[in-house]
């Protein structure tokens, strides 16, 4: 674990309010995750890796963009670890960096269709950009 990773791990824990040490490694979060197939690192791995300080890998993972924020893992975690908060915190670590927005306004027009609700655009910006 590099010094930067250690710092980031602390920051992730702080802003998410998640204590990864509460995890009993039952895997229920990953068992319940509807986006599991689309993820490279899965919810339970986020918990373990933040604990271990393997942050660089998480920052580069595609999981932070595929988490659906459906809160199934938050609802069902038997020990109230709430991995979705951790994933969001990692995502924030990325997009809060200068110029690191995942979604840019110029990309929008080609993604639009006639019926697409505003909400989809607003939420995408909230989730992927700062």
């Amino acid at each position, binding site marked *: 674990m590099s010094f930067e990773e250690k710092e980031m791990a602390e920051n992730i824990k702080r802003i998410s309010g998640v204590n990864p040490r*509460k995890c*009993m*490694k*039952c*895997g*229920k*979060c*990953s*068992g*319940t*995750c509807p986006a*599991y*197939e689309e993820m490279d690192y*899965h919810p*339970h791995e986020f918990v373990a890796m933040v604990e271990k300080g393997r942050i660089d890998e998480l920052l580069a993972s595609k999981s932070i963009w595929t988490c659906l924020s459906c809160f*199934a*893992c938050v*609802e*069902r*975690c*038997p*020990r*109230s670890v709430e991995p979705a908060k951790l994933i969001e915190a990692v995502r924030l670590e990325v997009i809060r960096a200068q110029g690191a927005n995942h979604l840019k306004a110029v990309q929008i027009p080609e993604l639009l269709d006639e019926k697409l609700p505003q909400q989809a655009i607003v939420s995408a910006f909230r989730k992927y950009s700062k």
Partner: protein
Amino acid sequence: MQRIGVFVCWCGTNIAATVDVKAVAEAARKEPGVVFATDYQYMCSEAGQKLIRDAIAEHKLTGVVICSCSPRMHEATFRKTVEAAGLNPYMLEVANIREQCSWIHKDRTEATEKAVVLARTAIAKVSLNVPLTAGESPVTKRALVIGGGIAGIQSALDIADAGYEVDIVEKQPTIGGKMTQIDKTFPTLDCAACILTPKMVDAAQHEKITIYSYSEVTEVTGFVGAFKARIKRKARFVDETKCTGCGECTSKCPSKKNKNEFNLGLDNRTAIYIPFAQAVPKVAVIDAESCIKKKTGKCGLCQKICGAGAIDYEQKDEYIEREYGAIVVATGYNPIDLAKYDEYAYSQSPDVVTSLELERLMNAAGPTKGTLLRPSDGTHPHTIVFIQCVGSRCDDARGKPYCSKICCMYTAKHAMLIREKYPDTEVHVFYIDVRTPGKNFDEFYRRAVEQYGVDYIKGMVGKVVPHDGKLLVQGSDLIANEQVRIEADMVVLAAAIEPDKSARSIATMLTASIDTNDFFTEAHPKLRPVESPTAGVFLSGVCQGPKDIPETVAQASACAAKVIGLLAKDKLKGNPCVAHVNEEMCNGCSTCEKVCPYGAITYQDKEFRVPGPKRTEIRRVASVNEAVCQGCGACTVACMSGAMDIKGFANKQIFAEVDAICR
């Protein structure tokens, strides 16, 4: 002036590592009244105790202060020590410099300073101690066992075999408890009924045992050796003395669609029923809520058919009062309510069952006569998923924080039995850990995996979705690092177990303590595991913590041994730290009487000398029945004039302690 000796214990390094014991002894020596102070490695050891006894003799000590572990640990030990040296056992005070000092402080200076204060507080108190003599009280040679499951039955049989009377009070119509509902037992796979029912019969036939079934303890008063319990015998509307248990009534009863509790609602029973064939007592009971006669006044079929004339629709609840020397709590457990965990769809599909329900579905006397069939459509299930730790090992907001202990083993048993009987059935077990500490337990689990081909998957199920007659199970396989999806026919949930709901009220009734999960607290987790901190109350079985059958039986017998030890005594030494009244100061105002929970205070008119020409006057003053007083002290604060005081915790002593702390 007292001659006080102070003995500072190192407790190996437990105290000495954080507290400068020599400095404590040194400081104590300077306190008024102290004529001797020393330190030693283990004060509670024989050598340590000898040191105390010798010092008492050599220095003619009249009071002793031990600075050591909590008085809850060794006060009794040291009382015996000083008594052996000819001192009154109550001329001793213990300064708790371990649990309340060395173990909680890291800074040596700070801990030593505090230890000195605690020592001088104990010295200040012991300076005001006076010799006390405990009164004696007789022991009623009969035990009450609350709960008639395997724990209660075993305790009762052992106590009765030692020659003492035992009453078992069971709230259900039959004794036997949860074990009657279990099909086979791990790790030997013997049939539960085959090993339990003979014990039930033994209990029923034992001349020293009285079974009060369908009864509840409603009130307990008194204290060790002399408890008094009020027992409610609920109306069963069948005369227990007349009923022969022939079952004729149950075959004729027209109210047939009532949930059968014995089979956990998986089938129905009649309104008049005998819980199961081997029930003890084998006596019918009418469930008033579903009895047509009780509800509408019309019917009366069972009464007509009963050859013994045992049916009595007018029967009322009865109360009896009995006296006991000891009380055994054996109130057992229940699986938790699963409504909170509906991601497993327990309330959405009848094919999601608890493990206890599965026991009934596999039992020859169960609703399916022992053939494993799906509750929804009665078909044979081909894929069964077991989910472990449902509601166990959760954080406080989500469920029970403890491990329910029995689930790993009974699930291995279920999986094995299913694979043996129905080899075409796939069995998957989702687990977090497999916990098998016990004789032949891990071997048993390995057999399930290796010989019977049970598929153990390390990971939890996240969601069970009932769809199209199937149960779609989605979970984690942490070893393979993949999400697994299984189309199951049945899902079996290892529901956490919790103490019976009655535990809380019974604990209150007995003034025995329970923990945050409602399990009864033992007097000491290691050294006194079957006794409650309340004298005369003993713990048997799961009411104290999750246990399997062998452990329960072992604990039940241990508990019985403790009860026998108590009942074998003719007299008990009481607690001499009781209230006493200074009649010179008593106003006779009856305030103390009102707050006494034991009715230990009465009033009488007495003649007193008074200054002035009249010399004497008659005054109403309180008097304390020392055999009944338990020494709580409620009266001492209610008393305005300070006439009421507690021996051993006297006002003056507490003032001295406060002064010593604040000095």
